């Protein structure tokens, strides 16, 4: 598929915005109900042993990635980070469903109503989106800036 630079930039911007909204929302909702989140993670079969630092590290990463995605110069790094985090979450859910001894109840916020299988599909969509955005990113940022100016 061939898109012109403007379309490519728009698609990348839209995907980045979706990601910023998702991560900001996810991180904020975790911090707002931090105790509950910590308890839920403690009950999660994969990470219960690390429940002391993951509850703080996860929203922090989400905020940092959101900021990276907002800064045009760091956007590519942000997209790779977002892609990796989403991939980790997906693997986490996959292991949870297939290898873990029990499946914890739910995560928070609007995602609460999703089953784990729906969550898996949701995550894979986001991974694909991040992949698309990375591939559509202008190959050379400084040059692109000039072309846009022209």
């Amino acid at each position, binding site marked *: 598929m061939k898109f012109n630079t403007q379309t490519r930039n728009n698609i990348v911007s839209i995907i980045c915005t979706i990601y910023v909204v998702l991560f900001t929302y996810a991180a904020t909702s975790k911090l707002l109900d931090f105790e509950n989140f910590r308890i839920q993670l403690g009950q999660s079969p994969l990470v*219960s042993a690390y429940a002391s630092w993951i509850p703080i590290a996860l929203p922090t990463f989400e905020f940092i990635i959101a900021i990276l995605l907002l800064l045009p110069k760091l956007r590519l790094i942000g997209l790779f980070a977002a*892609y*990796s985090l989403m*991939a980790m979450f997906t693997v986490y859910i996959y292991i949870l469903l297939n290898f873990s001894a029990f499946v914890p109840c739910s995560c928070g916020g609007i995602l609460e109503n999703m089953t784990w299988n729906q969550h898996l599909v949701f995550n894979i969509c986001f991974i694909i989106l991040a992949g698309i955005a990375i591939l559509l990113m202008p190959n050379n940022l400084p040059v692109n800036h000039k072309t846009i100016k022209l």
Partner: protein
Amino acid sequence: MSNKVKFALLLICTIFSVVTIIKLFNLSEDIIHYHNRFVRRFPQHVAQEIHQTDLTYNSYYFAGIGEGKIYLGNYTAPLQMTVLDSTLKEKKIYHIELKEKNLPFQAPQIRVLGDHFFVFEGIVPYIFKGNISNWKASLRINSGYHFSHLEPMDSVNMAIRYMTPKSGESLIGTLNLADTTKVSYDAKLLQKQFDGIFDTDGSLLFNKQFNRIVYVYRYRNEFIVADPILNLDYRGNTIDTISRAQVRLAQLKNNSMKTFAEPPLIVNKTTAVDGNLLYVNSLLPGLYESENIWKIASIVDVYDLTDKTYRSSFPIYHIAGKKMKGMLVSGNLLYALIGEKIVCYKLLEHLSQDRAVRDYAHSIH
């Protein structure tokens, strides 16, 4: 950055993510099962109440279980035996008849094992033995050391917690009803921390399937597994971190009696054992647990005796604000005495948490 480089980076990110999570998962499993830093696991719905019966009084205790029958003794009517069926619907009451009646009876207790039952009081001491077909018992032991706990191991051998003369310290031992010269004890099984009385307090259990004596300390995070001739198999730990009993005692003035200077820190309250699993009602909340659950339920931790590992935990809910005071497990059924009620919980296989959830699909649904 060319698309080739981007693809390569995406691939690296993917591999990195997958490996990280798999590593985390393996480490987490390892930590939870073997080096617990006191994080409990509450799998969903492993224990569900299936029967409940009102016993009218709250003075019952478990005397034994066998062949689909639950035997209940009663502290306020010491020679009354209440027998319930496994669904708690049918109730029969028997009166135990003792041949010798001229003993200083105060608070006799009863245990039932197989076809036999035992009536005993360690402070006198005496042990009666009889058959459950007619509930008549005759005196077998009326001398020897005082004792504070008794669990029958078979029809003649008893696991006993003796009290040493004078000091009153506890010792685990055995007793043969047919041959009283076969009294034995091992002073090293229970480990004294400061007084040998309170610090070694705990519950004595006998595991029929594995033929092992199990002793769970009340005030520290340890349990002892020994064979019927008192050889130590191993000492295991419960998941909490209380390795030293936290009991402070005060001597009463003009009295040799001691009393608690402050409420002691109880670690393991009631216990039960069945098959390879040990059930411990712990009173210590762990990390990352909702405090609400501790207000409405007693928490039972499950350990696998074959590999000394913690498996999982589940709640037994209070009834009308009353906490569980005794429990008994037989196969996949757990019976608990709560206030005036007796309840039966069905335990699902995945409480031992040793396989992936999909392998249990048949047992859950």
